[in-house]
């Protein structure tokens, strides 16, 4: 620890300057009743080398996806992040800064975030983007409360929002937690057997404050119906669309078919999965939502010399000004990860985004082509187009199948029964830019083998 404390060994000198003789005097104001009597029951201090070696041992025992052939996605996508992104984002000036309260010495981060806002705005087709929420789930949750704040006055279904029934329960749970304080009712939108939204069910949502759907949906399906929703819902219900941002290199931007708010897990742009965090939540909206939206936002301004300068703006929405009437409690957000996103987007450029989307989508198409050759594997939504992933129905229990694949070194996919308990034989298989043709062949081979063991057992 000495390497972190420059004044270790100088205590006496410093205390003497204050006319004191012991550190204890500095804590005289802490009553003895609340004092800790014993040392903390923790291990002794370690040196950098020892910590690193423990970290290597412990984290080394985790199975990193890169060591395996992996088909696990379900909301987080292993993508390649260019080397320059890491090297630039760890520059101390970015890494060790705080929220840019003093804009004069924080122009770098402020401008980078203003550029990030522009990149996201262009990506999703909406004029406004904030500089990140915690993740896709909190972005979705904040979108719901935001839609209620904007629309509930004129809504016929007051304090009510509709959410696709396919929404993963963990995401839905976050929404519920965020919505319960404002007493918002969350109702579910049904889907058809082919995976598409049930348009009758959508009609029920007319007059509510907001409708939340995902495109691609949680099972990877690209649903043409989603582009029709705004027409059905009209202007007094917020259409909230959650996206996999990379898909927007091929798929129409929700802002272009009427979405009022676009949210999403920003992770596939610029960030490794990192066990699910830190990642960043995308939040973009149209003008009517601006003053009731959550999160920080950067504006372009001028300095006293008239020079272009950037600063945080519209902070009267925020907790540090408006306190309990704030549009959100968010303070620390995910700026640095959003910065990685910005860097990745800057490197990709429009055509690069397109290429990346093509790589993801063609890998998925190849997956569909090859998996469809397996006897016993059914594709419930095979009629649609998929991005990154699709559901399959197996001739046996998904848990068994995943364990079998694990035993041959394949991370097989996601067990959909943990989202939809009745679907014990469903599995979500994911393909990304990192998927190679031979990975898919390996999966096919071992799925076949697993199925043959079932047949033997039967």
């Amino acid at each position: 620890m000495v390497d972190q404390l420059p004044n270790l060994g100088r205590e006496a000198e410093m205390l003497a300057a204050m006319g004191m003789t012991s550190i204890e005097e500095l804590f005289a104001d802490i009553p003895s009743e609340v004092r800790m009597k014993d040392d903390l029951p923790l291990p002794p201090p370690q040196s950098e080398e020892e910590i690193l070696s423990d970290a290597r041992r412990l984290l080394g025992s985790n199975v990193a996806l890169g060591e395996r052939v992996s088909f696990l996605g379900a909301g987080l996508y292993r993508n390649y992040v260019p080397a320059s992104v890491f090297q630039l984002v760890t520059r101390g000036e970015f890494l060790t800064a705080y929220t840019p309260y003093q804009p004069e010495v924080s122009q770098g981060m402020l401008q980078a975030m203003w550029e990030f806002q522009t990149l996201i705005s262009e990506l999703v087709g909406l004029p406004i983007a904030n500089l990140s929420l915690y993740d896709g789930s909190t972005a979705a949750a904040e979108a719901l409360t935001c839609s209620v704040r904007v629309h509930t006055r004129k809504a016929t279904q007051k304090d009510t929002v509709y959410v696709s029934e396919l929404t993963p329960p963990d995401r839905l749970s976050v929404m519920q937690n965020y919505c319960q304080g404002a007493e918002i009712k969350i109702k579910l939108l049904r889907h058809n057997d082919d995976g598409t939204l049930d348009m009758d069910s959508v009609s029920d949502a007319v007059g509510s404050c907001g409708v939340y759907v995902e495109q691609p949906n949680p099972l990877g399906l690209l649903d043409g119906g989603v582009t029709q929703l705004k027409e059905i819902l009209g202007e007094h219900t917020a259409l909230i669309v959650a996206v996999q941002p990379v898909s927007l290199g091929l798929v129409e931007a929700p802002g272009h078919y009427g979405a009022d708010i676009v949210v999403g897990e920003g992770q596939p742009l610029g960030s490794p999965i990192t066990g699910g965090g830190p990642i960043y939540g995308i939040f973009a909206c149209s003008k009517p939502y601006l003053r009731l939206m959550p999160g920080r936002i950067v504006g372009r301004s001028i300095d006293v010399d008239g020079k272009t300068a950037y600063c945080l703006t519209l902070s009267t929405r925020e907790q540090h000004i408006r306190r309990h009437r704030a549009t959100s409690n968010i303070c620390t957000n995910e700026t640095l990860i959003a910065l990685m996103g910005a860097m990745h987007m800057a490197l990709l450029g429009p055509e690069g985004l397109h290429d990346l989307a093509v790589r993801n989508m063609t890998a998925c198409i190849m997956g569909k082509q090859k998996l469809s050759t397996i006897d016993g594997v059914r594709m419930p939504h095979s009629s649609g187009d998929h991005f990154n992933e699709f559901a399959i129905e197996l001739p046996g229990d998904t848990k068994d199948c995943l364990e079998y694949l694990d035993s041959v070194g394949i991370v097989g996919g996601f067990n959909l029964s943990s989202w939809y308990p009745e679907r014990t034989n469903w599995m979500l298989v994911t393909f990304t830019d990192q998927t190679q043709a031979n990975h898919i062949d390996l999966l096919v081979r071992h799925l076949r083998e697993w199925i043959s063991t079932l047949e033997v057992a039967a």
Partner: protein
Amino acid sequence: MSHLFEHNGAKGQGYSQPAPVLPASEITLPSGLIRKALPRWPRLSEPEMVRHYTWLSKRNFGIDTGFYPLGSCTMKHNPRVNEVIAQIPGIADIHPHQPEHHLQGLLSIFHEMQYMLEVCAGMDQVTLQPVAGAQGEFTAVRCIQEYFRLRGEVQRTKVIVPDSAHGTNPASAAMCGFEIVEIPSRTDGRIDLDALRAVADDTIAVMMITNPNTLGLFEEDILEASSIVHGVGGQMYYDGANFNAILGITSPGLMGFDAVHFNLHKTFSQPHGGGGPGSGPIGVKEHLAQFLPGPLVGKRAAAGDELDAAVDENWYHWYQPTHSIGKVQQWHGNAGAIIRCWAYYRRYGRGLRTMSEHAVLNANYLRHAIHKATKEAGVDSLVVDGAEAKVAKHEFTLSLAPAKEAHGISAMDVAKGLLDMGYMAPTVYFPLVVPECMMVEPTETESKDTLDTFATHFAEVLQVDAETLHAAPVTTPVRRVDEVYAARNLCLRHPYDEE
């Protein structure tokens, strides 16, 4: 180039990628789903991108570039090995849905962090899920809300918050649907027990406090406050933003709190990254543990067939608290930040107390040095301490009210003057109870020399005439930024040709 969007290289100038596994022509999206026009992103080659972000970084101030005494934010040094650790594939390249036997290393670290935070805070159970302090507050208040619901105490609709509290406290409580009862602080920011007694009744669900408070003073009456709130059946919530002052010396548990959040990015040095990411675990007493968001990490002896994947003799596993409120982040919180904070805590281990001692030593030394330097420079009449207290904790406040009165020099002027001397400015105008406030937190990782020099420079700034200071800063990449202009002439994205 002054901004990214001036770069517009030829098509395909971006980052080059391998060919797709199938030709793009295999994609047959219906026309309604096909994107018509790609985003108007810039086109940069790698050399241009590297130079752009290097240039931006040079226009940004961080701890690495200078002293960052931003009160309440604990801008301490970020040890570099932690960044190396966070890049190990066993954390950077793992998926939260992998099976437990793929993640024993991660789970064991999570378990160790739960335990460490429990013993440091004197709490019975910690969850690592919340990803920032504010989310921790929200999560804990949600848990308490469910606790009361289950007990049928639905009349508890109010949360007490001192007026000196951080804005996230009332915002988080309001998000849960509580009514906020703001009580005035005493002039030193300390809690006014009479004001508290006046509002304490059985409609109170929670009282939220920071200790040391936002003036950097320890709430000596904290046990009394706790017993008032507990007396009416309410719960005590500890805002852990100032935990850096007391670690190993006292604990929220000993002070009578029922729940607490940690700002790991402050106390345990996840780099602040220009505004995030953070990590905001919460700890609670036994009676609240069943309401925490899940899953939590438990451990039991490893079975024989588990030993292959185990990291020690134990098996670490996820489990759900029985009355869990559900989730506040979809995954397992900011695992990457937690790993860094684990590496940070391991450096001190049972010696964490030394960290807090030095944080408090440095703060008091700097407070002393500033008063000494201003006295020697004959400008001590321009600045007074924000509180009459013999000792501060990890931060302290100064009031520039005399300077304002005598010379028209505001706290903001002094802040901008300090920027010109190469420092990040202390927090200004917070807390509001101190007029023309500057809130100074040096942290334990600053050397005595830095503190001495800062004190001297601070006194020097006070000697600058008002006119010059109003014009400060002059040495920064831009000069004083017009925040009103920004709000009146909203420009939240590059206007392209629309300008």
